[in-house]
């Protein structure tokens, strides 16, 4: 058996992913979401788990540094990585939405300014609708942008909508549903077919 490497996203969704991994019957030494360690092994060292920044997971997998990645659909869409997307883990559910101030006037066919952490997703969505936009890439507190006039709207992930509400914004349009997905490197899928399939099946039965 060859060793397979799995890249996990650090941060919010890590806990539920770790729970799921434990349910597969593989035990990972020291693996919990508060650990400072970045590399973990299961008991027979056949699986290596690495922790990376969520947006980097698709990159690790696309380049073959990890065979498998477990990460939110939002990051897969933004990175536009060329990978296989094989499984919906049905955790971390939320959606991509366009939001803005309720009283903001629609500008007709004029160019819109969109503040977002996900410029690729925003561009793709508005391109489909035939609307030209300018994106402003922000790294946090995106809700602020329309309030202080930096942008017309925002494109962001929305879970409960309470952050939007507290800042006086409303969802104007939903773009796509998001959940945590399992992605696989295209070369690993061919060269490590058995190992990858075994792990996916373990995960599938753990979800039931």
């Amino acid at each position, binding site marked *: 058996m*060859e060793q397979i490497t799995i890249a996990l996203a650090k941060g919010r969704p890590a806990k539920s992913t770790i729970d799921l991994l434990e349910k597969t019957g593989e035990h990972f030494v020291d693996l919990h979401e508060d650990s400072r360690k970045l590399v973990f092994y299961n008991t027979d060292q056949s699986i290596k788990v690495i922790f990376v920044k969520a947006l980097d997971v698709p990159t690790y*997998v696309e380049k073959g540094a990890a065979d498998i990645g477990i990460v939110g659909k939002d990051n897969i869409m933004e990175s536009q990585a060329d990978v296989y997307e094989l499984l919906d883990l049905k955790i971390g559910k939320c959606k991509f939405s366009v939001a803005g101030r309720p009283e903001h006037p629609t500008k007709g066919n004029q160019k819109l300014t969109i503040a977002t952490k996900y410029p690729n997703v925003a561009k793709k969505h508005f391109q489909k609708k035939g609307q030209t936009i300018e994106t402003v890439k922000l790294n946090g507190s995106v809700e602020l942008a329309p309030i202080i006039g930096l942008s017309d709207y925002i494109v962001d992930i929305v879970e409960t909508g309470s952050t939007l509400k507290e800042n006086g914004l409303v969802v104007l349009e939903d773009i796509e549903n998001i959940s945590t997905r399992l992605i696989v490197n295209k070369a690993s899928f061919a060269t490590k077919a058995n190992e990858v399939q075994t792990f996916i099946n373990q995960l599938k039965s753990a979800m039931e």
Partner: protein
Amino acid sequence: MQRYVIDNNKNTNVEDFQMRDMLLSKLKKRFTTYGYKQVRTSTFESYDMYSNIIGTVNKDEMIKVIDTSGKVLVLRPDVTIPLNRMTTLNGLTPDNQRLFYILDVFRQSHAEADEKESTQAGIECFGDNSAEVDSEVIMMAIHTFQDLGFSNFKLEIGHAGFFKELIQQANLNEHELESLQALIQSKNLVDIEPFLSQLNIDEDVRVAIQSIPMLYGNPENVIDQAKSIIRNDSMKEILQNLIDVYEILQAYGAENSVVFNLGLINNMNYYSGIIFQGFVDNIGKPVLMGGRYDNLGKQFNQPSPAVGFAFEVDLLIHAIQQQELAQPQSPVVDVIIHYNESKQQEALRSAYVLRDNGLQVLTYLNNKSATQIRSSYIAEFNESQNKLISRKIEKNFSNPEELLALLQKEEN
């Protein structure tokens, strides 16, 4: 002075070049044993030729140059198309049926702005459309992978026509087709079902399309599964073509190196028959791509069946370095000659004789030698005697011919 550290040339040092050279000579040797002859194409190609041919290189990715007359040229973005044009225009002769090339291609993309040039080593086989030719070309790729020492490599084989045939019955618009293609390329089983169900297509076509991503793996299983979604004669023919190719690969004894992947869609739209790509450990991208393209010749008004593939040499080198398949070579020469001024003439004449006989020789006056260079033999010329030294022997000699004879005796 300003320092230019943007060195985009990969593998610029001597050791890397040696390794690259060794790799290329292995490829050359293997291609030659299948009867292929090396050619090159011009670095500059006409922009119009590329922009007129449908389904080739993305126009934005080509690097354009304008000559003094205002004509737009591109730096060779691929080799297949110029070779195809050359053969179709010159007509097929016994000389140009089987060609191979090792050439740089130039493309630019936003994602990897630093990587504008890469080396491709590929082959093209013109004139025949048969399962025998297809499988021989695939076998040659497998054989080359074995030469390079990869223990774990896989060739994915698919067919450009299978998806195209199926999709014709679904009557999709451009947007829908693009989304569907992306879903199939990423084997996105999660989203393909809801996507298809919102389209207005026949139930059994929908089921067939939905099963494409998982038509993957052991060829015999895939063939069995594919039989159940065959919808017309041309799909039947395509499947038969794949079965024939697989049977011949079995005859070669190569069945363990291949898997079938009917969800394989190549972005180069000119492929018309089988398509395949090769993977090795730890490299996320295919290191080899190829397939049959019988319709490309039509665009030069001369249909000409052809099949070919190309290795991405830079990725291969990366893989070989990662898997440590190449032994690092420490700088070694055959003979180092040390001499005194009084013996200069004799020593240099000896060096000439040895070099003339194909030995690598370095000469140093008065023991001033670069210490890190090692040699199999050391020849010393000083006032009292001439001496040949190696780990095993220490012998005197009186003239260059005697030295050469000594060395040749030792080497045998």
